[in-house]
């Protein structure tokens, strides 16, 4: 599955207008509820709720299918393995357990997918910093996310180069794992570390960390309805411990 974080500021979808922290708390609540559900029919209803969330967020079905078909296939494998491999239990129980397990997995992964589709990592980092997270740690998250495309390209280049040299770095064997570790991870790690000192010196040269607080050019707004939605999310998560 590959996801493409959405830009909430440009989307007209209702869930996208929520503060990223609100969306994060909703995601945690959704995962808690998904884990608490023990009836396959309830899990199916929750699955419908999550899909409805995707509709509200205006995620196109074709895109959703392309991003999540691997997950759906894996959940089917989970279901089949529960039905076919578990011994000593009536088949109705195995089917119910398999369905519950698969739906639990799907509900958690699709809820996360919805969150990622509606929230950019940068927005989340800024929202957390504006909510009180020390900005140096928030900046660590931003730095991490900004390096991802670069390392993705670098890792791809290294992998292809090693494969072109005839190394079996793409084989799921113990030797392949060791080759992958030795001839892919080391070059990528060295590339990563080569950036550390120059970036750190550059940041300190610009007085990063001089003050305990910082100012923001762009504010991530926290509306009254964010508070209401967070309240509902927390109440639902707590209620799931008593009602489900």
């Amino acid at each position, binding site marked *: 599955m590959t996801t493409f974080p959405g830009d909430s500021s440009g989307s007209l979808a209702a869930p996208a207008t929520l503060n990223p922290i609100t969306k994060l708390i909703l995601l945690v609540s959704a995962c808690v509820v998904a884990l608490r559900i023990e009836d396959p029919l309830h899990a199916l209803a929750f699955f419908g709720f999550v899909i409805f969330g995707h509709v509200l967020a205006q995620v196109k079905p074709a895109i959703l299918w392309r991003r999540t078909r691997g997950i759906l296939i894996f959940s089917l494998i989970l279901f089949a393995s529960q039905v076919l491999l578990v011994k*000593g239990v009536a088949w109705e129980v195995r089917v119910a357990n398999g369905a519950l397990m698969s739906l639990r997995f799907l509900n958690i992964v699709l809820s996360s997918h919805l969150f990622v589709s509606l929230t950019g990592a940068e927005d989340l980092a800024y929202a957390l910093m504006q909510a009180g997270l020390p900005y140096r740690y928030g900046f660590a998250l931003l730095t991490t996310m900004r390096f991802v495309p670069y390392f993705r390209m670098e890792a791809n280049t290294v992998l292809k180069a090693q494969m072109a040299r005839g190394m079996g770095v793409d084989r799921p064997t113990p030797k392949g794992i060791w080759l992958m570790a030795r001839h892919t991870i080391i070059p990528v790690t060295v590339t990563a570390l080569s950036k550390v000192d120059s970036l750190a010196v550059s940041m300190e040269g610009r007085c990063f960390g001089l003050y305990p607080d910082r100012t923001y050019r762009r504010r991530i707004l926290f509306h009254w309805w964010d508070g209401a939605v967070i309240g509902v999310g927390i109440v639902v998560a707590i209620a799931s411990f008593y009602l489900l």
Partner: protein
Amino acid sequence: MSAGPKRRAYYFSTRDLVLIAVVSAAGGVLSTYVGYLGSLMNKAVGVPFGAGQWMAGLHVFWFVFARAAVGRTGAATLAGVLKGLVEMFAGSTHGLPIVLVSLVEGLLVDAVLLPAGKRPSLGSMCLAGGVSSASNVLVFQALYFSGVSVGYVGLMTAFAFVSGAILGGYFARGVLDVVSSARVLNLDEEPEGAGRAPSFRVISTLVLAVLLAGGAVFYYTQVFEPFWTGPTCRVEGMVERSYEYRPIDFEDDSVTVTAELQGAVTYVPPTDYTGVPVASILERAHVQEPAEKVRIVASDGYYAIFDLDDLADRPEVILVQDKDTLRLVAAGYEGAYWVRMVSRIVVCADD
């Protein structure tokens, strides 16, 4: 001209934070590929999950490396959170739980290396890698795979531990030596044991060992419930609390009765049977009004119906474990009421 404000001293310097960030980014990127290889390994072995645990050490390599390179407790935890977030935003097949898994892995690396000082030894790095890597199996097991046998979970945990010790600990130490000798990373070299009195290290190790041992004793005596691999049946219908009946949960209610099976075809002379009264099983489910009947259903669809009040007065009607199945011994009833392979107990209003 003013000298300006004095630079603050932080627990993690800017360089530490950048190091943790780039290592987490690289780890997050390569984890996608490692996960893909793990899936291939599962397919090659022919299991839905588990075989990929041989790769698990490559996930924790980054935490052990970050902790050893930075030399401060907390570096692995921070790397865990950042790597987990990268994986989630990059479209991990696990969603939010991957952040939790990475966080626990990072925390364990920090906890195991807590007494190890600024530059941990090879042995402690291997131990940290192994423990951290093994934790992913237990976290995922707790979240999803509640029905998997304890043997399979143990096997996966062992795979993950070995992988973590080799790829997370041994390999991380090797990479650290490489980048240090190549001057890619300037580590503040500190001889092992320097900077603090040996007694502090011994004491902190002992404290950690006592805490871990105490935690283990508490867990296994107060919290841990052994995985049940024997037969179960569902108690449902007009009850407040549907649940999965397991004989192990009713050991204290177990009774022995002598019963004689007199069927139209089958006859079994008086024999001693040990099991749990159906009345006790129903009591735990809290039967609701206006329930009157109890249907004992077998996995092949066969069932027998009992009067609820009648069952309450007959503690000799018991559910016994018969190898891998449950069997109803209905003392005092004719043979047709003795149900084999019981899969459900349904409380209902009438027939």
